[in-house]
């Protein structure tokens, strides 16, 4: 049972919940950028929570199925077709052997996900099936899919069934300005108070330099507090003694173009970071594209944990409703 890739789309990769436990030697977690869309996809097709799925960006892939199975398209707002007939998204759909899944033009968001009953069966690499293309490991041969690839499908679907649907009220909307919550801290003291205020006041625009490693934004210039640099950091005011970067952390090299690190993040470095995006809000960043606007809303730790809990409770509720 396989999927034949007729057209790979753009940077379509195999992803799961990610690769934990190797941060200290430089492996970022990788895994689906929009965790909600990924988990709901698996729940819709009746997979166990960690099954591998496909993540695409901007364009969907064209995929042929060689046996009858059940799939679900989630994530970005994009029309999906099976053999030319539009199918509902956020709903499990039966496909027959020889059927072809294709996509129309993106209407909202950035990343569609394709879940398949049984999951995409690629070898585990350091405990995960996620692709980490930066060094070419994991997923399908460590790279984005190409035309002609044949992906095996796993056989351990718990309960594949067509017609499971996410309630319309639970389908994420992709507003014109994405709002993400930010816990200010880490090396935020390196920025002037004015600049920190400017950071959360500014409507930032996603630049073309936006991928699974991180998103770069444009919108304002930020200033550092002058100081005598501590030994080891380097003389540039944006420099700190090299340290670990949390996934979701925001750095501002040169005071321009802040970078938010995502799941394929570099795990450490020597640029000052001003805070960290709350983990569940990386889902929202994952659904923004070049030119989209983003606003960072400051929260404290309790606020961050509340945002997290609300989002994960909702996911739990959805999963039980679908099982």
């Amino acid at each position, binding site marked *: 049972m396989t999927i034949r890739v007729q057209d790979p789309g753009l940077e379509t990769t195999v992803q799961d919940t990610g690769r934990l436990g190797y941060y200290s030697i430089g492996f970022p977690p990788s895994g689906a950028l929009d965790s909600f869309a990924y988990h709901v996809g698996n729940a819709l097709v009746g997979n166990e929570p960690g099954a591998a799925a496909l993540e695409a960006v901007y364009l969907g892939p064209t995929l042929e199925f060689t046996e009858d199975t059940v799939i679900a398209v989630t994530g970005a707002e994009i029309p999906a077709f099976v053999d030319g007939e539009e199918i509902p998204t956020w709903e499990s759909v039966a496909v027959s052997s020889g059927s072809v899944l294709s996509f129309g033009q993106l209407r909202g968001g950035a990343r569609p996900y394709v879940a398949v009953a049984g999951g995409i069966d690629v070898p585990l690499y350091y405990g995960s099936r996620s692709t980490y293309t930066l060094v070419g490991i994991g997923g399908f041969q460590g790279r984005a899919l190409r035309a002609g690839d044949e992906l095996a499908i796993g056989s351990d679907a718990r309960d594949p069934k067509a017609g499971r649907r996410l309630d319309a009220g639970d389908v994420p909307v992709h507003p014109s300005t994405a709002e993400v919550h930010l816990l200010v801290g880490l090396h935020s003291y390196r920025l002037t108070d004015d600049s920190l205020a400017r950071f959360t006041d500014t409507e930032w625009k996603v630049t073309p330099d936006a991928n699974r490693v991180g998103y770069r934004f444009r919108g304002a210039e930020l200033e550092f507090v002058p100081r005598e640099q501590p030994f080891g950091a380097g003389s540039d005011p944006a420099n700190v*003694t090299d340290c670990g970067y949390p996934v979701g952390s925001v750095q501002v090299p040169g005071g321009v173009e802040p970078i938010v690190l995502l799941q394929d993040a570099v795990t450490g470095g*020597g640029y000052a*970071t001003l805070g960290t995006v709350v983990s569940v809000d990386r889902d929202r960043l994952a659904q923004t594209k070049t030119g989209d606007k983003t606003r960072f809303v400051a929260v404290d730790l309790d606020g961050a944990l509340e945002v997290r809990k609300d989002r994960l409770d909702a996911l739990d509720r959805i999963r039980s409703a679908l099982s």
Partner: protein
Amino acid sequence: MTATETETRYDHGGDEFVYVELSAAMSLPVHFRSLAITRRLAEEAIPGVEEIAPSNASYMVRVDPDRLHPRDLVRELQRIEDEVGELSDDLVVATRIVDVPIMLNDPWTHEVLMKFRDRHQDPNGTDLDYGARINGYSSTEDFIDALAASPYLVTMMGFVPGLPWCFQLVPRERQVEVPKYVRPRTETPERAFGFGGAFAVIYPVKGAGGYQLFGSAPAPIFDGEQRLPDFAENDSVVFFQHGDVINYRRVDREEYDDVRAQVDAGTWRYSYKELEFSPSRFLADPDGTNAAMKEVLYG
């Protein structure tokens, strides 16, 4: 919030990370405290702790907030820090010293760095000329000599898999220090030898990077398919480990190409020896300790 050089800062990196900065400045005693704390934390195997990443003068912990409240984790870390105390004179670290060939002022990094002068502090020179000047060397050649004169200690791993941050084992007044690029490059050659802050690195793969580019290593430090025996025999895709001592040995183009040929043939092996490193002994006699370590490696 203040950032003194002595007071430990505990902070939250969003809901899933705790960042602990033992000092804003780098020093070996601080680094070994970070190692001692993170080792103890690993031994305690506290449920909810998912990743422990020691670094130069700080460390980071990834926590599952659904199992362990990040504030409770901070309390545990403060307790461990108190228990570990200051660097003990008796501390001895079992490690190894590795011979790492390096070609400085090489053609490959030179080509790339010239493309990114607009992101550099000194658009009109090269990274090596700039490093030599701001560190007070009268010639670039003297600067190059200093870079390879004494071994380095791996005090952090990361950025991408296998990249070692290397802190040169010389007294502070002899340590090289350079800023990172004003804005990071979008391109760095594979195996580039770079320098940022007080740290030397080898970039395992090509990609973005903000370090000054000084040279190239012929041998890989990351092998995703574990093709070379150093990687296959240790069942690891990365070669270096925290605490390794690295001796960067200058090679010319001929030796560089020879190592490349061995890598291509799948026969390349690093030369290294087991070693016990005593931080207090090093701090008391840096040059004597370095000479003894080199004797272990090459003697």
